[in-house]
């Protein structure tokens, strides 16, 4: 794909950003909003991370040392909610805001004012969620999956605020997805057909459709909870003819596509980075697209593999086992394509590439344990143990989060005009890489050995590896403070970046100056 930039300085040149705080409150510029999303998600990442540190510190040794079981449950709940809805998802939305318009040659997002709104309701949602920590009865304590009746009949009063904040997060995500879809469907530069779109754009288009399909279902689930708690209905209450298992079905109907919402954009990012640093065109572009589409479609028919132990009939268990195993096929195709891209390439290992390579290996490890979890009889032993914790942290931390970090290193020269410090970036990578493996690899062992998840205290045979895991967690945690330092240092200054930034990088975003002008592509570029 090549692009020709026409002179687009004519009528937009004089529009600079407003000055001071007002710029950020009133901005409708996709780059500003992207920046806001990214900083917000980083703040949430640190808060959710601090909670993870509390959890790991409590688990450092057997016995109760730091927190009480009640507070521990609040921590695991908030850690999950904040990392998913505050950390990973807004980070991807931020990247979409920054990159989608530039990648498709559009001047901005399609709905800039809604864009502003969808960001600014998020801090409010998390303010409400976090304030529940200080309410009577404490914060939500039923896990991020909030199974009824623990989250309804037996829930603390703050649950109402939790429901409210989930509604706001949902609204924000839905608005963000509508914006992304409308932008991609209507604002591509002339000549950019669907099968010419960069993979990150493709991955976000699919993600946005997934969000549109499932965020309303989550909203429905929490609305039903709200009605059960306050308006005397019995959706999930057996005492009134409801069914608590129904909650799990509705939740996971949302929850499983949600898992792919958190990984598809990562697939897009990693494809770009591997292509660039292998200096070789991505292998199997169209199979990449088809793989993502099939993963997205399959994600709607596998939800009950989270519920193998609720007592479903044999036929249902078999169906969900087989459909889940099937997902390994398109996922495998993606991994093979990445490796084929590297094969006979001309590779260098700058920080983004290091993160991308680690992504491929560690995400695949998470995929392997996912495949193991799909085997229903074995799942009876794995389910709700640390094996599951290890599995989903492998796909989310060195998966989703590594891809976000890779993206930041990859595009930050474009955003700020400054190169990050390569030496520090690599150091950050190695610290994170070691930290993440020391934290989560031993959790496979303690899970197989029989340690259930979501417990504040454990039997003595799990002590050694929990200690190792905690040491790794603190290493990983502090490395991310170091990441903050690197990012701030890059924003403040550094070696000036060229427009192309990376040798042979493909895509329209590399055809504009670094830092990217406040307004890009006022006149659409021509794509041939």
């Amino acid at each position: 794909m090549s692009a020709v930039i026409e002179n687009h300085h004519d009528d937009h040149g004089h529009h600079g950003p407003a000055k001071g705080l007002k710029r950020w409150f009133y901005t409708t510029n996709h780059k500003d909003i992207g920046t806001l999303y990214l900083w917000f998600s980083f703040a949430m990442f640190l808060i959710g991370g601090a909670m993870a540190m509390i959890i790991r510190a409590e688990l450092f040794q057997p016995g109760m040392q730091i927190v009480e079981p009640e507070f521990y449950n609040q921590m695991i709940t908030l850690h999950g909610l904040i990392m998913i809805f505050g950390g990973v998802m807004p980070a991807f939305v931020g990247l979409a805001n920054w990159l989608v318009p530039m990648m498709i040659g559009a001047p901005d997002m399609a709905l800039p004012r809604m864009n502003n709104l969808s960001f600014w309701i998020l801090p409010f949602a998390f303010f409400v969620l976090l304030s529940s920590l200080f309410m009577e009865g404490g914060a939500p304590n039923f896990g991020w999956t909030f199974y009824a009746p623990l989250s309804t009949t037996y829930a603390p009063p703050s649950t109402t605020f939790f429901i409210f904040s989930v509604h706001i997060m949902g609204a924000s995500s839905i608005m963000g997805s509508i914006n992304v879809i409308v932008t991609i469907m209507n604002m591509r530069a002339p000549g950019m057909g669907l099968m010419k779109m960069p993979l990150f754009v493709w991955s976000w288009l699919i993600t946005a459709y997934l969000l549109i399909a499932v965020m309303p279902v989550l909203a429905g689930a929490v609305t039903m909870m709200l009605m059960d708690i306050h308006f005397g209905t019995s959706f999930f209450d057996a005492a009134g003819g409801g069914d608590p298992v129904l909650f799990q079905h509705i939740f996971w109907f949302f929850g499983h596509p949600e898992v792919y919402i958190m990984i598809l954009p990562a697939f897009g990012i990693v494809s770009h980075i591997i292509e660039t640093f292998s200096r070789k065109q991505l292998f199997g572009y169209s199979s990449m697209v088809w793989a993502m589409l099939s993963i997205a479609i399959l994600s709607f028919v596998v939800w009950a593999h989270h519920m193998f132990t609720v007592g479903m009939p044999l036929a249902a268990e078999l169906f969900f086992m087989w459909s889940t195993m099937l997902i390994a096929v398109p996922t495998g195709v993606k991994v093979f394509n990445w490796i084929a891209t590297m094969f006979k390439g001309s590779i260098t290992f700058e920080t983004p590439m290091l993160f991308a390579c680690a992504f491929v290996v560690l995400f695949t490890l998470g995929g392997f344990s996912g495949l193991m979890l799909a085997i229903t009889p074995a799942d009876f032993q794995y389910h709700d143990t640390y094996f599951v914790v290890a599995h989903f942290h492998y796909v989310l931390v060195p998966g989703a989060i590594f891809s976000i970090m890779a993206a930041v290193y990859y595009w930050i020269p474009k955003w700020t005009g400054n190169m990050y410090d390569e030496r520090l970036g690599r150091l950050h990578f190695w610290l994170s890489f070691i930290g993440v493996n020391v934290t989560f690899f031993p959790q496979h062992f303690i899970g197989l050995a029989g340690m259930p998840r979501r417990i504040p205290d454990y039997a003595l045979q799990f002590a050694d590896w929990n200690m190792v895991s905690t040491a790794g967690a603190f290493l990983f945690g502090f490395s991310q403070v170091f990441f903050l330092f690197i990012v701030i240092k890059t924003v403040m200054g550094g070696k000036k970046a060229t427009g192309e930034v990376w040798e042979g990088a493909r895509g329209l975003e590399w055809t504009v100056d670094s830092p990217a002008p406040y307004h890009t592509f006022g006149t659409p570029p021509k794509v041939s």
Partner: protein
Amino acid sequence: MGNKKITILKLSAAVAGMYLFSFALVPLYDVFCDITGLNGKVAQTSNAESSISVEGREIGLQFISHNNAGMPWVFKPSKEVSKIKTGTLYEATFYAKNTTDKMMTGRAVNSVAPSNAKDYIKKIECFCFAEGIELMPGEEILLPIKMVVDDELPDNIKNIVLSYTIFDSKIEHNLTMDHDSDHMGS
């Protein structure tokens, strides 16, 4: 390139549709459960005559009961274990007593083990189909079950356990209020 407004409208309709779909999952789930036996509940049958036959075999039937948290009633089967014949109408009762000094509404939830026996149990009458069992303070009641176990019951099932859990419906009662029409006969 398409029209933005049309895309927005379609997407908004999709959002609204999916929100409604989440609520539609509630009745859909019931239908799905009826077909697949997902939740192990036995539904009411109006016509069990096709299951009645003379050449039944003997199987064991056990009733078990449980009071859910905070339900103070006495609630137990009148007879716990019995031998019954498939294809023969069987009647049983549960005894319930409201031990409190308040009027209360209870609701029974049924479940079957083994779960694949569910399709062969034809319940003509069961207190577990009632939306609520209302009892005055101290009131006692015998709750009826009428059922037939179909002859087609797989041979390897020699024993059926029918479990009933009684829940407090937590309906506030005003004692002067008239009894509801769906009040199980007392």
